[in-house]
């Protein structure tokens, strides 16, 4: 019954409470000690671990891209340098997931900074970089675009304007096919470059010197530690303090000194203005390329600024093909420009003597063959010797020479001058051309009937037609081989390298090729004489050389445009213009002691003497008479 008569026992209740309170106090102490133990674990035992994580949180290592090496001409004129430019960059990690990335790109389109068409490729480029890398989404912002972004900047996390050095070509399109250009690093590029070496770099060399010497020009990136807040924005202070951060400066790329003489280069491009063609000038004593022009060209600054797909397609689709380097990639029948070489071959092989004459009736036929080979002069040149055959470009003379030598001897002689193989110039994309032989034909065709070399095919090669193809670069190299009397050098554009910060240029020595020793001095003289006569009255390039204070040795040529490539669409007027013969001219001057060898090619220029030779004259004048031209 105790329970039913329970009454309040004050002292007992106080004792219960006191006991329970003490028990609670013990539990409180135990739990507070547990927390203290946890704090000890975090702050003492695991301190190093968390200190590192904390450092990783607050410090971001930002690459400092190196400044790209300069490109200078032989006199130190700057052909390519670097200028600060503002670009929009995005850090994926800070933007967020795929949905946020798409939203950010869509907002950039909405405020008119990106073209909706570019978004897929930009998106791919962003995804191909690491999450923490700053990826350019728009290069070279102008003032108006900068202002527009500044207005909307608060809407974006992880997208900001950065100042970068951009490539700048002070002469615009001049020498573009020699220098090449830089453009945004593409997905393809990323596959074969070391991403760490290009951290923070936007542009990479494409084609020309920029492409071939990328390794020299690029340099080594540095880095800088940047204090960032949780949103990824760089900040100056951490609360009340400014912490110490490490910096490693980048090493700039090496400067390159080219053999190009900007004055001669500009003269060459001015002379080719409005034409589709190429001109190359080489110093025959060392292989220095003094000028390398291909027209039309394009402004490489546009690539450095970032071309839209539309702009690129316009360039790519241009009927005049400005992106093609005709000097290296245009393989054409060399036409009559091969005659001095075959004259040398004929002397060497003894199938002709300098004085022996041939009667040219204006046509030629192989014994027992029905096919008639015509001379360009229907009436014929009459009785003619070697010097005059070169001077007047007599086809029948060289048909005869070719018949006597046979294709394989012609081939063996011509390869010594570099025909049929790339010259090895230090920029990429060069074509090999074609110097045919019986062996070549056996390998080039599959069917047995097509593998047979016909004697008639030799005759065409005798005047640089038929199977034979040569690039303007090969012609320049070959004529330099004549000018040096058989001591050719590998053509090159880079003559010296200046490491970053150095004042001394490390020269790149010229590379001699095997000399042509089987031709005697007398034999060289005959061909020199013949080529000199070309520019004298009665010669095929007399007009172009008129009034020259120095003697020019040269040879004209024209190559038939026998077919139109399939799938090309021209209108009637263009068709007829583009059916005209290509005009060629090879030359060197002064004839008695050559200083410069020049090859000129003008697409559909019709006659070498009237279309190509004047271009060569202007180039020679610019180089040999520096005081009269400027």
């Amino acid at each position: 019954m105790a329970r039913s008569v329970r009454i309040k026992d004050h002292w007992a209740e106080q004792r219960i409470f006191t006991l329970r309170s003490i028990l609670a106090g013990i539990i409180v102490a135990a739990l507070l000690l547990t927390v203290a133990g946890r704090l000890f674990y975090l702050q003492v035992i695991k301190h190093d671990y968390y200190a590192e994580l904390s450092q990783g949180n607050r410090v971001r290592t930002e690459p400092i891209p190196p400044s790209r090496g300069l490109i200078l001409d032989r006199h130190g004129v700057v052909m390519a340098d670097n200028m600060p430019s503002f670009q929009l960059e995005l850090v994926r990690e800070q933007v967020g997931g795929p949905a946020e990335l798409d939203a950010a790109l869509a907002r950039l389109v909405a405020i008119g900074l990106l073209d909706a068409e570019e978004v897929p490729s930009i998106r791919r480029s962003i995804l191909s970089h690491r999450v923490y890398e700053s990826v350019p989404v728009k290069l070279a912002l102008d003032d108006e675009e900068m202002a527009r972004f500044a207005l909307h900047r608060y809407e974006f996390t992880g997208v900001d304007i950065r100042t970068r050095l951009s490539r700048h070509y002070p002469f615009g399109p001049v020498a573009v096919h020699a220098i090449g250009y830089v453009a945004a690093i593409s997905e393809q590029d990323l596959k074969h470059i070391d991403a760490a070496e290009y951290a923070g770099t936007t542009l990479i060399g494409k084609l020309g010197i920029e492409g071939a010497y990328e390794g020299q020009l690029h340099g080594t990136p540095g880095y800088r530690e940047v204090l960032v807040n949780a949103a990824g924005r760089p900040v100056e202070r951490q609360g009340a303090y400014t912490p110490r951060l490490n910096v490693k400066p980048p090493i700039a790329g090496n400067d390159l000194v080219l053999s190009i003489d900007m004055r001669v280069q500009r003269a060459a491009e001015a002379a080719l203005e409005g034409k589709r063609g190429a001109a190359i000038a080489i110093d025959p004593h060392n292989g220095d390329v003094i000028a390398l022009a291909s027209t039309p060209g394009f402004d490489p600054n546009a690539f450095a600024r970032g071309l839209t797909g539309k702009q690129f397609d316009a360039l790519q689709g241009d009927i005049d093909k400005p992106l093609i380097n005709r000097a290296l990639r245009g393989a054409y029948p060399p036409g009559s420009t091969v005659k001095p070489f075959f004259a040398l071959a004929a002397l060497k092989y003894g199938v002709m003597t300098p004085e022996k004459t041939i009667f040219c009736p204006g046509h030629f036929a192989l014994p027992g063959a029905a096919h008639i080979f015509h001379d360009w002069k229907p009436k014929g040149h009459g009785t003619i010797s070697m010097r005059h055959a070169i001077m007047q470009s007599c086809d029948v003379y060289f048909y005869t020479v070719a018949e006597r030598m046979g294709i394989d001897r012609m081939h063996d002689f011509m390869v010594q001058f570099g025909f049929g193989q790339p010259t090895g110039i230090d920029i990429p994309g060069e074509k090999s051309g074609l110097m045919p032989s019986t062996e070549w034909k056996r390998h080039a065709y599959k069917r047995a009937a097509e593998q047979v070399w016909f004697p008639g095919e030799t005759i065409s090669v005798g005047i640089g037609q038929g199977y034979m193809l040569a690039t303007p670069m090969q012609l320049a190299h070959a004529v330099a081989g004549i000018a040096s009397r058989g001591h050719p050098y590998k053509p090159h554009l880079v003559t010296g390298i200046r490491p970053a910060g150095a004042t001394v240029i490390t020269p790149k020595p010229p590379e001699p090729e095997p000399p042509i020793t089987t031709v005697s001095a007398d034999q060289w003289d005959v061909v020199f004489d013949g080529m000199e006569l070309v520019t004298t009255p009665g010669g095929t390039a007399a007009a172009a050389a008129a009034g020259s204070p120095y003697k020019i040795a040269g040879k004209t040529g024209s190559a038939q445009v026998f077919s139109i490539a399939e799938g090309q669409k021209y209108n009637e007027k263009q068709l007829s213009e583009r059916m005209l013969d290509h005009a060629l001219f090879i030359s060197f001057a002064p004839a008695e002691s050559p200083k410069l060898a020049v090859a000129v090619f003008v697409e559909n220029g019709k006659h070498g003497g009237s279309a190509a030779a004047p271009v060569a004259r202007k180039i020679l004048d610019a180089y040999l008479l520096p005081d009269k031209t400027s």
Partner: protein
Amino acid sequence: MILDELSPSRTRRTISAGSRTLRALGLDGPLTGVLAIIVCLGVLVVYSASGQNIKMVEHHLVNIAIAVAAMLALARLSTPQYLRLFTPVAYALGILLLLVVAAKGHIGKGAQRWLDIGFIRFQPSEIMKLAVPMICAWYMHERPLPPTIKDLLVMGLLIAVPTGLIVLQPDLGTALLIATSGLIVMLLAGLPLRIILISIPLIGGAAFGAWHFIHDYQRQRILTFLDPQNDPLGAGYHIIQSQIAIGSGGVFGKGYMNGSQAQLEFLPERSTDFIFAVIGEEFGLLGQLLLLALYAIVIGRALYLAMQGQDTFARLTGGAIALSFFVYVFVNSGMVSGILPVVGVPLPMISYGGTSMVTLLAGFGILMSLHSHRKLIGS
């Protein structure tokens, strides 16, 4: 007293004058002193943790002023009789407001915790933090201790109704804290140990059942607590960043206003729920242990005052206030240091934010009122 007044020491006179003033205000000297130290530390830490935001500090000071006013009013003006009379009224009002909130939530869809009455916005659940333990103490006041099964069932119901309403808001964290404060009263009243032993498996089973009823985000919080790396950018971010902040602080800390985690905003809710991590980062292990020691003094002193209570209501209420304060300290520091799941509980007296400060100081006001008025009602 006379000796004190005759003492030549000026310091001594000041202290004695101060203690007289405190006594006249119904305050306990040691408890008030330590609370004042903690609050002052809080102001300093809020200045740093807010990123030197003076506006937030000003706001924090206003909150402190309101809370101190509430404490002074309760300590000086209320008497145990009034408190006991007012307890059922406060409890009933709290239930009513929770129902209003629940109705609003039903109409507005989604979480509803706040009540807007013109110029002031507050959470009715905050009233319950004091009203629930007090109603339990009120219920046991006239009854003999230890409580009978019937008493336990009645108290269980008094706890369950508000807890249930708060779970529905949904605010699982606060609901658990309020239920805990009621349970504390039961324990202090002498809840038989065998019932505790029996209820442990029952609670386990209930927790298992509750898993299916709680919201996804609550489930996620528990899962994340068990493995923070599982969701480093989502719910696990808080825990990871706060552990980095504490761990990188080391023994002595990175220095006031120099914690990179806090200053560079890697630490979320740095001036509210996670302010304990800021203390760990900037003042290190020593700073945090000092703060825990100050909290231990507050809890110990409050329990001591409760033990001196002269009736069941005074003792149980005082004990519940003291131990609830401990629960807040433990849950917050445990959460921030990664030994408890993330529940939205501020660090008592330090975290930026008004409601918790007012409730806590009001509680201490009640505690001190019950203590200082004991002679008036006593034997």
